[in-house]
């Protein structure tokens, strides 16, 4: 029933006292938000805590929320603010050497369930995927954020949310692609060259 409701309908129902509407909002956005947060903080336990805090804040503020804005935008702005709060509280994390951060990312990949299947016959492809993931994890927080926000928003929407010119976002995205390309070519030069020859 609730699954077919638009966001605006869910908000109205929640304001009328229907808690199930809020639960549907949680179920609707948890995966997008969790992927976004975990890609930023690179730690499942921290991501769990941040995700809970995000939804508790949404729950408290939703009664005051004006429906003129889009719910998804608002939710992601809260998510971004709370994730940045985490970084402010945990400044030492950002001071970690790159190698340590890489190790952290790989340990997350080992422990977290991945929706992508990994059959044995595509083990080489999976090695390549691991390499690409490692390359993504080496990007800056802002670059990773943009890559993951793109799953949920257009460039125009992100520009509005972050109050930045769209050109700046396009440049940042291109720069991220170049960085990933460079990291892959450095770590797997032969495979990369074969890819380019095709």
């Amino acid at each position, binding site marked *: 029933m609730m699954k077919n409701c638009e966001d605006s309908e869910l908000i109205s129902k929640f304001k009328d006292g229907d*808690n*199930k509407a*809020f*639960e549907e909002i*949680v*179920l609707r956005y*948890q*995966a997008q*938000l*969790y*992927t976004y947060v*975990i890609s930023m903080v690179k730690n499942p336990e921290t991501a*769990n805590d941040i*995700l*809970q805090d995000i*939804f*508790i804040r949404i*729950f408290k503020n939703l009664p005051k929320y004006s429906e003129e804005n889009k719910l998804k935008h608002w939710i992601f702005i809260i998510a971004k603010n709370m994730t940045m709060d985490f970084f402010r509280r945990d400044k030492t994390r950002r001071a970690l050497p790159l190698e340590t951060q890489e190790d952290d990312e790989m340990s997350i*990949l080992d422990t*977290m*369930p*991945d*929706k*992508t299947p990994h059959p044995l016959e595509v083990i080489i492809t999976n090695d*390549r*995927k*691991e390499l*690409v*993931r490692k390359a*993504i994890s080496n990007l800056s927080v802002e670059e990773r954020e943009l*890559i*993951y926000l*793109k*799953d949920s928003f*257009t*460039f*125009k929407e992100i520009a509005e949310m972050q109050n930045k010119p769209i*050109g700046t*976002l*396009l*440049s940042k*995205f*291109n720069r991220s*692609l*170049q960085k*990933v*390309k460079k990291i*892959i070519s450095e770590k797997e030069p032969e495979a990369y060259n074969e*890819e*380019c020859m095709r």
Partner: protein
Amino acid sequence: MKNACDRLPLYLYNEMDEQERIIFEKHLLSCPECRQSLEIFDEIQSAKPEYSAPQAVIDSIFSKTTRKKSFLKQPAIYKTALALAACLLIGVAAVFKNTQKTIEYSNAYNVSPISYEEISNMVSNISSLESINML
């Protein structure tokens, strides 16, 4: 064609209008850099992990928001236990306060322990008073 390369992300996410897309595809034919970026983009898209929050986290969110129990909605046994604990606390506080009063009284009147000798004197005094009364 630097400006055309800058527009690549819009092409990758299908955020160009029809005319812009046709122009960009012509550029793509003559730009090996953009073609390489396109391949890398495809790899990123397929390698990018998608996560789902653990069920325990979802349950915890619900228990802290929509399913949070107010005191009135708590089970009877919980409310009884809480009432008993409150009574016990009040009782302990009352006893403590009473003890404090006794100590204060003792200090104020400088009451000191009485020896057997003093008691004996007091008893003999009382006996002599009683004998006077008898007269």
